[in-house]
Structure formats: structure tokens, C-alpha cells
């Protein structure tokens, strides 16, 4: 059975005012215009991935990091407040499947993996900050790179 995380969050933080989760009614939707094998795909993880000497994330930090698509595993680190990061530190592909996406590019499953990939620390309570500060910067990045499809992995 899927875990119900909204009640679980309420129990875990029972000493605090219950968090008001975002509940949307409408759903924006853009159809995929061509097969995924013809698409340039960008990857983003909220798992707090860092490349080489990039600074770590702080509380309510809506900044993001650009991760070169050819980054090696030993050049990546993980910093996040909201989940146990031991497995992601051992193998970032658990939440940031960069190596798998590179394989799919080489094999033609996708036409191209966009460079760079992106990472942020998804444990941000302010939905407004995510929507109005972080998301528009990502839109600009994706448009500048002429990305056809965007693949997001939470952690």
C-alpha cells in the first residue's frame, strides 16, 4: 500500500502547526509533440546533489545547482534535510539518474540529454518561493537549451 505522507508528516511534526499542503484544482498540460526518442530531455533532482566544490544548500534555500551531464560519480555529493542521504551518497542514481540517462542517450532511447542537469534541495516549505523564484529560472534554462521534455525526480 502506498504510504500516506500527508498524515505521516502531521504525526512527525505534531509539536508544530500542521503544514498547509498545496492543493490545486487545475492541471496545466502540454502534449508531447514527437516520440521521446526524438526529444532533447533535461533532468532535475530535488535530492540536493552537489558537483565538486559547489556550496551546500541551506534552510528554505530556493537556489539550484547546474550539474554537468558528464559529471563522474566521485565528483558528486548530496546535501539535504528531508531524507536519509546515505544511499544517495553511495549512488546518486537513486534520486539523480544521470548515468542511466547518459546510457539512454547513447542507445537512442532519447535523442539527447540536455547539458547541464539540475539539482536543488526540495525541502522548501514556501510554495510561493518554489513557484515564483525557482521555477521561472528553470523555465529560462530549459528554453535557452531548447529542451523538448523535462524529467523531474524528487527525493
Amino acid at each position: 500500500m502506498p504510504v500516506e505522507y500527508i498524515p505521516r508528516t502531521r504525526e512527525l511534526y505534531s509539536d508544530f502547526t500542521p503544514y498547509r499542503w498545496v492543493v490545486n484544482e487545475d492541471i496545466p498540460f502540454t502534449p508531447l509533440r514527437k516520440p521521446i526518442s526524438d526529444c532533447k530531455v533535461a533532468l532535475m533532482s530535488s535530492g540536493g546533489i552537489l558537483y565538486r566544490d559547489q556550496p551546500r544548500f541551506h534552510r528554505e534555500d530556493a537556489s539550484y545547482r547546474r550539474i554537468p551531464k558528464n559529471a563522474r560519480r566521485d565528483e558528486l555529493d548530496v546535501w539535504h534535510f528531508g531524507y536519509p542521504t546515505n544511499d544517495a551518497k553511495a549512488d546518486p542514481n537513486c534520486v539523480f539518474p544521470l548515468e542511466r540517462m547518459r546510457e539512454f542517450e547513447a542507445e537512442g532511447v532519447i535523442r539527447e540529454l540536455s547539458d547541464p542537469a539540475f539539482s536543488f534541495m526540495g525541502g522548501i516549505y514556501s510554495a510561493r518561493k518554489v513557484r515564483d523564484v525557482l521555477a521561472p529560472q528553470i523555465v529560462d534554462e530549459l528554453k535557452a537549451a531548447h529542451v523538448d521534455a523535462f524529467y523531474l525526480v524528487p527525493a
Partner: protein
Amino acid sequence: MCHQSVGLIARVVEEAGIPTLCMTSALDITQAVKAPRAVFVNFPLGHQTGKPNQPELQRRIVCDAMAAFETIKRPGEIVCLPYVWDPIDRSWEERDYSKGWMPERPSRQDADREEAERRARFAAK
């Protein structure tokens, strides 16, 4: 919280005319925020594209996600993948995101030191 953040970004990107797909292990949060397209894997938080050092499993999950880009036609549709974390022991479902589940956070001093070491390591190269 990660699931809400990812869903919010996907919605803004989708409004800007680029199709998106979100992985999820938290169905209730993804359904509330209404991500445009999602693929569900019933794994503990921190493993949305698989277990560490199991590239074949990771490949199958990510490959299924790429396929879902094409098969999802209805806004808000969520494709559920059949992978099982542990067929015998499902106790992780009780523990995930409950009290005592999150390891204690390092102190600011320890985090600063760790970061300084990492930065020095790469600056030297």
C-alpha cells in the same frame, strides 16, 4: 516536501509549453499538487529511481518513465510501476517518515568542516 516542490516546478514548466514527467513515491502529495504527468514507484523516500548500485533496476524504472512520457495522454495521470522494494518485509512502509526515521543532522560546525574539505579537495585538482 520534495514531492510538492517538484510538482510545483513541473506545473510552471508545463505552463511555459514544455512537457514534464515527475517521479513520485508519495502519491497523496503528488495528487494534491496535481503534477501534469507522474510515475509512481512504491519505494522509501530517497530511492525514486531505484536502489543504490543496482543499475539494471534503475534502468528499468527510468526506461518505464521515458515510455510514460508518450503513453500519458490525460492531464494529471499517474502510471504505477510494479516494482517491489522487498517482497517479504514490508515494514519500511511503517517506518518511512516516522519519528526516529531521519538520522540526526550534523552540527553546523561539522557540516562546515565537511564542506570545506570537499571544496579543498576539488580546488587542489
